[in-house]
């Protein structure tokens, strides 16, 4: 608009004040963006990772309670089941001092492509996983963090099981938030037998792929009924529910994060409002002259609010971008996946968060500018001139 130069020039009127305000708002928005990455980490996990046709079946007593291996076949034979694979926790460590830094499981290689078609694992790599007994599929997050790539060989030492295993990384889960390492169940079973420890006759959990979302509920009910009176009862739930309950324990923490975020946002309002009121107050005489010249009240109001919005917007944009840089710093520090935060600790600033940060800044600018602008616009010209002169 043609009034933009006027608004712009007014911001440049007191460059120090403008810079300090924009800086303060920038810092606050950077903080907000950083804080928002935490619950966002959870949301993204639920959205991206959870499919609506996958079911998780585990022992009703707890995740650490095993299920008999025979259950797998029975589940596979149910109508509507496209594929099923079991995951059994191995708990191997790569570097002994750091402990378990990424989850690793023993799985059946054949159903992977079917049950996790949405993961987008390269078909040739899946082929290799099936072919090589010591093959391993590794998630993008772990590959990045450990600096591994497909083709590398690694060794995991057993903690729960008294055998160490060597792997060849043959496949990648192309998702930079996926931390898993999956290997062939047979491999662990054989290693245990070789060490004289019997074999692997139980499984941890079963992932089931159903052909149609509408069938999910009936299949779950069937599975649980099937094993109701057996030695180990099952509890089936959708993948989404499984993940969210896993991290429902973090809800209290997330609440605190959101409270703090709200407080910071409120801070921004006050900072911006302070600046707006100061700069308007200094210009009352000028504003009166503009009104005398014929500038209508609404116009005066709009330009004053625009000033506040542009200032906040600028600060917000800078802050949002700064948060990107800050997360790099955090990634260097926060190493392990199973630090107490889980997915909350991913600290990835998504485009959504950047936009949210910017919009918050703009919105705050608008609110903070309204009261001083209204006051200035409403003032009677004659009265102002009387007071000022």
């Amino acid at each position, binding site marked *: 608009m043609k009034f933009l130069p006027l608004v712009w020039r007014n911001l440049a009127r007191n460059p120090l004040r403008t810079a300090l305000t924009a800086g303060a708002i920038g810092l606050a928005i950077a903080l907000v963006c950083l804080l928002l990455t935490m619950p966002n980490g959870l949301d993204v996990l639920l959205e991206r990772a959870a499919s609506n046709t996958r079911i998780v079946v585990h022992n009703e007593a707890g995740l650490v309670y095993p299920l008999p291996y025979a259950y797998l076949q029975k589940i596979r034979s149910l109508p509507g089941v496209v594929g099923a694979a079991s995951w059994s926790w191995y708990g191997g460590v790569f570097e002994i001092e750091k402990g378990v830094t990424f989850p690793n499981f023993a799985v059946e290689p054949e159903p992977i492509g079917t049950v996790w078609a949405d993961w987008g694992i390269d078909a040739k790599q899946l082929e290799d996983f099936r072919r090589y007994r010591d093959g391993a599929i590794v998630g993008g997050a772990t590959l990045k963090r450990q600096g591994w790539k497909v083709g590398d060989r690694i060794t995991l030492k057993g903690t729960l099981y008294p055998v160490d295993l060597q792997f060849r990384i043959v496949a990648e889960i192309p998702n930079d938030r996926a931390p898993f390492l999956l290997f062939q169940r047979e491999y662990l079973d054989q290693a245990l037998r070789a060490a004289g420890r019997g074999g692997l006759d139980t499984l941890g959990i079963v992932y089931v792929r159903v052909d149609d979302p509408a069938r999910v509920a009936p299949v779950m009910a069937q599975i649980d009924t099937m094993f109701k009176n057996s030695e180990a009862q099952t509890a089936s739930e959708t993948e989404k529910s499984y993940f969210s309950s896993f991290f429902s324990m*973090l809800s209290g923490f997330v609440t605190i994060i959101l409270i703090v975020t709200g407080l910071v946002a409120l801070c921004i309002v006050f900072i911006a409002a302070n600046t707006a009121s100061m700069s308007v107050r200094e210009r009352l005489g000028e504003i009166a002259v503009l009104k005398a010249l014929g500038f209508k009240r609404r116009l005066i109001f709009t330009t004053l609010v625009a000033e506040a919005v542009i200032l906040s917007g600028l600060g917000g944009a800078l802050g949002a971008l700064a948060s990107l840089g800050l997360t790099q710093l955090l990634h260097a520090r926060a190493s392990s996946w199973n630090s107490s*935060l889980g997915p909350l600790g991913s600290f990835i600033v998504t485009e959504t968060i950047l936009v949210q940060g910017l919009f918050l800044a703009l919105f705050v600018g608008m609110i903070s500018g309204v009261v001083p602008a209204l006051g200035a616009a409403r003032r009677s010209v004659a009265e102002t001139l009387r007071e000022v002169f």
Partner: protein
Amino acid sequence: MLPLRYALGNLLARRARTALTVSVIALVVVASTLFSGLVSSLKRTFVTSGNPRNLIVMRKGATNDGSSAVPLEAFQALRFFEGVARGPNGQPLASPELVVQPFFHTPGGGRENVLVRGVEPVALAVHDEVKITQGRMLAPSSGEVILGRGVEGRYVGAQLGQTIRFGHGTWKVVGIFEADRSSLESEVWADVRELGDDAKRSVPYSGVRMRVADGADLDALAHRIGDDSRWALEASRETDYYAKQAESANVFYVIAIGLAVLSGIGAAFGATNTLYAAVQSRRAEIGTLRALGFSRLAILVSFLVESLTIALAGFAVGSLVAALLGRLVSWWLGGIAFGSQTFTTNVVQLRVGAVDLAYGLCLSLAIGLLGGLAPASRAARMRPVEALRKA
């Protein structure tokens, strides 16, 4: 020096502006103090007094007793190793333990992993920070459990005298224990054999805790355990073990400090703005004071006092709100749950303590000092002639 009344009077004159700046600092203090309270509370659960004469024995490579396995023969040999302390009745103070993480159900229908520790009665002697405050210790092979203070009331049936369901059975709650607000208070203790049967464990124990006899060489014993070629075990000091667990909370410190620094600087900028405007509008006044003979230092100090007063006011308001808010949140959420390395729920009582308030005080003083320095020195450097000239 300029009288205090001058600085304070000026603050009261510009009420709205002062109030806004105070609010900004107050909010920063609330946010930082609250978060610091959370981190302190969390830290408290990790760091127990632990016993410097205790060893924790786990499988080599296991970093917590939830992912380790120790065979029966190993325990039977270990307890008679030289250097292991003995109880009053000559029994070795070696506590075999099994850690399992079953689901517990909250009254609201939620589901959480809880750490259940299978123990034998000797555990009480080894974990001497554990004190039974209500009821009694569980009796072996009786289907009984005792609950840590953090567990009490959190789950269905988690009350003294009631029965609680987990794993494949029901268990009778016969006692409640406290443990110095450590993570042990988020545990449930059961009989190690019964727990092992219920969880169908082939290896009966996940770890062993033992007390080293007075006068015995702790490190030598630890080495002997680690070097024993029969089993791949590793023994470390209990205090070291807990310290390492506490490291997982490091990311919280980073967040807390980042929060304080970023919001602190932002608030300082806000204070600077306000003070600059004050200096500008009081130019003539300052010029007059200087002309009258007040030194530059006097002016500087006066403005800094203004700045610090705003900061302290912000701290006063902020700390009050933080204490109240902390209590409110704690009551509403009933303890913040964290996932620990064992994937179990570690319940933390949010408490804004003296240390957190001190942290908030330092933060607000820093804001006041940093924010006020530049404008105060500008005021001090003003030359009387310039200041008195019409703007």
